[in-house]
């Protein structure tokens, strides 16, 4: 498999998840999330040859994702270099104002969390296992479990209000 094919598979499998993690980190801001997704995949392309199967490819990708999110702050006015394609009609048909409102509230609550907590909870919501999250963040499983418990409590309290 050549680099391009490998990259295409990675992009297909992980782009949506990377986008949602970025969106959670940037408090629901889709524009910034999209910019960061671009940055993430550019980094993945640049470093793909150095991936040595020492960890899971997903761990490797989400480490780059989190690090790109962290550093995105240093570029306040990122140019949009790839134009946005038209959104498919399905999204417009699927539009549900009540759900949109609930989603907005959810992102506001996620946005109130501290930066690392935002990243952890988005990975939890994405269904990633604790071991992998601990590996991505660089903390022990026990520390992560305690932290997740605290974050869930904060988040549910906020959503209930």
């Amino acid at each position, binding site marked *: 498999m050549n680099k391009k094919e490998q990259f295409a598979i990675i992009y297909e499998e992980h*782009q*949506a998840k990377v986008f949602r993690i970025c969106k959670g980190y940037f408090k629901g801001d889709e524009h910034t999330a999209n910019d960061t997704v671009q940055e993430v995949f550019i980094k993945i*392309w640049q470093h793909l040859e150095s991936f040595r199967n020492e960890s899971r490819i997903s761990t490797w990708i989400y480490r780059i994702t989190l690090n790109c999110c962290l550093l995105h702050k240093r570029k306040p006015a990122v140019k949009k270099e790839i134009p946005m394609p038209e959104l498919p009609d399905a999204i417009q048909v699927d539009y549900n104002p009540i759900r949109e409102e*609930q989603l907005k509230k*959810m992102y506001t609550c996620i946005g109130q969390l501290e930066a*690392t907590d935002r990243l952890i909870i988005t990975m939890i919501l*994405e269904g990633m296992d604790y071991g992998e999250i601990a590996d991505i*963040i660089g903390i022990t499983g026990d520390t992560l479990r305690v932290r997740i418990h605290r974050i869930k409590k904060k988040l549910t309290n906020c959503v209930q209000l």
Partner: protein
Amino acid sequence: MTSFDTIQYLWNQQSHAIKVSSRLEELIELAEKKTRKIKIRQYWNTAILGISILLFVWYIAVFTGLRASWFHAGILLMLLSLVLRVVIETWSLVTLNRIDIRTDFRNYTRHITRFYKSRKMIHYVATPLILSAYTTGFLLLLPAFKKSFSTAFFVYIVISGGCFLVVFTFFMIREIKKEIKMLTFLRDIDI
């Protein structure tokens, strides 16, 4: 259903509606373009640095010799401050690019924080020194300019030189503020 289950349900609902804006081919093209751009920038930095050093050496060899004058000192100060600035910026760029983006979040945050701390030192110590050296150099050249050029051209040099310093200082302060803000943000990160 607990509240967290509700959040999870909401989160899953949005999964179907998300479309990322980048197309694969364009993304690869952009990645290649950016890689080329980084390489070109590194070549330019090396070229500017090399030319500055060559100019510096050439100037010492040809013009100053052992004769010292305020004019020579002025030119030397200006050249030296420019060389120093280019060296510092190149070093910073290389250091930033060497930080491994594939490492875990905790480690990456630690390295990035260290990088911004070094930038703070540069901004608070090296930058004022460089700026003062450059300004002093420029001021030392003025008497010689006054003697050699017409009044109108002399006034033009003073005004344009002054404007350059003001604009440069303005951009410098903006950059410093941005980087200090980033450092504060990084320090607040709790891992």
